[in-house]
């Protein structure tokens, strides 16, 4: 049975402020620059979710896209879209950088999505930068 990798792309908008309580004000400004603005700022994030598995001979699918869409919408987009990331429990103690956000999304989907194997989460904060997390594994080329 052939194994394929399916990637789906979604969008959400959220605000955040990068600030570490353990650093002085000067150190926070030096580290995070504009992102340390106390009122926060926002992004349109694009998230790509890659799942893999054997292609089911009866359906021709790795998993039903409706199931993936429903899970990502309910568990990730509903949770993050039009929110201030700093107010969410995940970011009570960690800074909501795109690195940390990418890892959190991976953890949520790893826990909630069972219909295929979660390979990777790729998160674009802007068109110029993106982050990928595969549960700590090396990325497939």
């Amino acid at each position, binding site marked *: 049975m052939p*194994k394929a990798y399916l990637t789906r792309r979604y969008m959400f908008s959220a605000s955040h402020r990068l600030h570490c309580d353990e650093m002085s004000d000067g150190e926070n400004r030096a580290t995070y620059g504009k992102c340390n603005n106390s009122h926060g700022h926002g992004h349109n994030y694009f998230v790509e979710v890659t799942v893999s598995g054997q292609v089911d001979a009866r359906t021709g699918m790795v998993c039903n896209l409706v199931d993936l869409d429903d899970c990502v919408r309910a568990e990730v987009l509903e949770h993050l879209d039009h929110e201030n990331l700093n107010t969410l429990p995940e970011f009570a103690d960690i800074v909501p950088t795109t690195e940390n956000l990418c890892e959190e999304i991976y953890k949520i989907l790893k826990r909630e999505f069972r219909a295929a194997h979660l390979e990777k989460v790729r998160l674009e904060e802007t068109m110029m930068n993106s982050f990928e997390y595969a549960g700590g594994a090396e990325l497939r080329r």
Partner: protein
Amino acid sequence: MVYLTRKCEFAASHHYHNPEFSAEENRRVFGKCNNPNGHGHNYTLEVTVKGDVDPRTGFVMDLKDLKDVLNREILDAMDHRYLNKEVPEFAQQIPTTENVAIAIWNRLEQKLNMAKLHRVRVFESPELFVDYYGER
């Protein structure tokens, strides 16, 4: 080892239907894609080959040869076609993006002797793509 990727586009129609399923089951599993009159997409295909760079030419393989193979084996067969009715692989198999990627891999693997096929990536839309590396 260098990886070379060539991109091309094709437009095709398809529908999803498994004759072993009841009508109700087909609608439940495949949703809108089960419409028997079909619907279409602009597909984008990215084919990645890998190999050592030839010291004389500086090429992994001649891009023109890759383009010719893609035109002959894939685009001539799939562009502006109804996949279920006009592409033999989909007489029996459902033309999902997964199966389109696998069919393209199988067609190219036999014809690409100049470099090793690494990955076939098929975008059904900018929001959905499938990668196939020949894993069975």
